[in-house]
């Protein structure tokens, strides 16, 4: 396999949900990127993108995670993450939060520097699918996954990170993979960060509709680029003893005969 990533140093942003609950996703990202020649580093100063705080209205807690993110990744040319939602937050919200931080009259030079660094870092932060296609120029990562799969395009991947059809192009290049269309694919699954506990009844109603559509495809796996969404309808599928299994895009792309 050729190694378009040769000589590239990539910072792996695992995200808190994956770090704590789904380590196989960041692990898969490391597998794929190293196979493509990248040097992958996990800076331990990283914590979380902070969107659960920011999106609930707690901007100062969000700002604290902007600092951990900048501290962890400032030295990298590329940051890659298995969550388009968290990358979306880095791009859209980190500069906004840093700017709020500089808004006060006692903003220090340090705060203003943070805004600059957050802005520049946002431009170097990528969702896995973007990094593979746009930076490494790879669509076929050499993966083999002989199963029936349906793809849920997450809202933030589409409308915040704007990854478009990149995940689908990557999936179509996987050997043996049979892709089945998901009805109503573009409708939100009802996770919504703290929405799922602040509005539990609506969240469950939305997740049920999503689960219903997933089951109707008859797929073996439902794939998405974000474990938070997979955890939402996956939790419902598990409760209902459905046979279809949630899986992260990175885990499929990491599957190869050689490993």
């Amino acid at each position, binding site marked *: 396999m050729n190694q378009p990533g040769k000589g590239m140093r990539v910072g792996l942003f695992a995200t808190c949900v994956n*770090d704590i609950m789904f380590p196989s996703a960041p692990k898969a990202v490391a597998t794929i990127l190293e196979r493509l020649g990248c040097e992958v580093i996990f800076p331990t100063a990283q*914590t979380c993108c902070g969107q659960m705080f920011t999106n*609930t*209205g707690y901007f100062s807690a969000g700002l604290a995670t902007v600092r951990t993110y900048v501290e962890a990744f400032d030295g990298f040319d590329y940051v890659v993450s298995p969550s388009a939602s968290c990358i979306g937050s880095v791009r859209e919200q980190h500069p906004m939060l840093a700017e709020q931080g500089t808004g006060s009259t006692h903003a220090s030079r340090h705060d203003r520097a943070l805004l600059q660094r957050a802005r520049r870092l946002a431009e170097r932060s990528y969702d896995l699918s973007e990094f593979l296609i746009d930076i490494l120029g790879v669509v076929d990562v050499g993966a083999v996954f002989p199963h029936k799969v349906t793809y849920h395009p997450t809202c933030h991947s589409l409308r915040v990170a704007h990854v478009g059809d990149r995940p689908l192009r990557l999936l179509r290049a996987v050997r043996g993979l049979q892709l089945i269309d998901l009805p109503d694919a573009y409708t939100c699954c009802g996770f919504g960060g703290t929405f799922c506990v602040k509005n539990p009844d609506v969240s469950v109603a939305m997740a049920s509709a999503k689960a219903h559509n997933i089951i109707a495809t008859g797929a073996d796996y439902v794939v998405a680029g974000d474990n938070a969404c997979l955890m939402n309808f996956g939790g419902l599928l598990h409760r209902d003893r459905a046979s279809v299994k949630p899986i992260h895009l990175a885990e499929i792309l990491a599957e190869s005969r050689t490993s």
Partner: protein
Amino acid sequence: MNATTTRVTSRDAARLTPAPPPGLLEDSPVFPIAAKRELANSQLRNNLARATETIRTKRAIRVAEVPRWEDLRTAAEAIKNATLRHLDDYLLQAEANLIKAGAHVHWARDAAQADQIVVDLVKASGVDEIVKVKSMVTQEIEMNEALEAAGVAAWETDLAELIVQLGHDRPSHVLVPAIHRNRAEIRDIFVEEMGRYGTPAPDGLTDDPAELTAAARQHLRDKFLRARTSTSGGNFLVADTGTLVVVESEGNGRMCVTLPDTLISVVGIEKVVPTFEDLEVFMQLLPRSSTGERMNPYTSMWTGVTPGDGPQNVHVVLVDNGRTKALADPIGRQALRCIRCSACMNVCPIYGHVGGHAYGSVYPGPIGIILTPQLRGMSAPVDRSLPYASTLCGACVDVCPVKINFPEVIVHLRHKAADLKKADRRPHMETLVMGVVGWLFGRESRYTWVTTASGLVGRVLKAGLDGRQKFFGWLPWPATRWSQARDLPIPASQPFRRQWKKRSSSPGRTPEGLSSHDRDTEVRP
């Protein structure tokens, strides 16, 4: 009910028009509670699902026909922004041109003032009943109830508004106020109520749409012919000519703005557009976005008084009611660009599940959750809950013809709501959790306590040791909000950072040095 309500709430004969549900909208339960109530109504969900699906599909087809749709949206956004930036100038220009054309202009700071102006004008016109063109701002200021209290009957003439009014109900949609009703329910309402307030429904009325429409037409006919005073809203107010524009589908509005002698238009101050040419943009965007039509059937435009033709006594009431407050907010003000097309609610998955009544607001759906808390302020619990009635999925962003960035405003309003909660004496669970978790996640050293603890939980419960994910099927309160219908994966026994550390210190540093994955790969029976 609420002691502060002065409204006549019983269906007794003392009333002139059907009584709406008791209580004030501001006193509605918070969104999660009201949503739960509405979710229990499966009839409602079916009606809504069918209606919004149809309208969404129609919109998508009609929008796809326009090659430069995105340019139109950008133009609309720019026109509205420029107008709002100089709103004071444009309003004065509109006022001057209205007066020049023979109209009377009135300014109302809030709902009570607007209602008083309308009541006085109606009384001065010497009538005890009026006919109405469908209008959102008159719902917002609860004009019908103010008129009722003053002994004037206000009759809705839009078919869906008539269904709502006769049904002792509230609108649940900006464009299709009776979207929550199906044909059978409408038939029952007509049979039951029409006779009490005018021409009764014909004998043997069925739920055939043509028959229902004919019954409504029959019921409204006398009212139209008797009416000497009418009210309208206004979709647009053109500043450089003083022209008012009403866009509608049924022709009832055309009757209301032409037949009576006195016409009172109640218009929100954000409805002004600078020039007649600007209408070109909006008249292309509005019908396609709202009803999915290339062009709406009736567009009425009038500029003050035309001697000997139509109403000779023309009034315009310009209403603020919280709009200048919204205008003062650099992020929130974009909500004032709204042209009330309703596209955002038609694509909103939350609106689609719960309908308009869950919002405790005249404006439901995405626009409601960003506009109402700005217009009414956030002192009522329901108004603080509205910005949270969103998953931030952004479906509304894609369709809004004036390109409102909903997530941006929602997060901004949540920030305000959170600050209010923090300032509250009463402790809030949310503030507590966000404070603690935010503190933990704000620094690597503290965050690793969390991963250490979660890994410990995972190891004790043996999560992922055999390559499978395990789940909690039950969680204690308040996590029941998750676990009532969903299982939750047990945290990984080896958090990623721990796996990485081990790998880094092991020779070779191959990714395969990481432990086998925790994903559930079992095949269930």
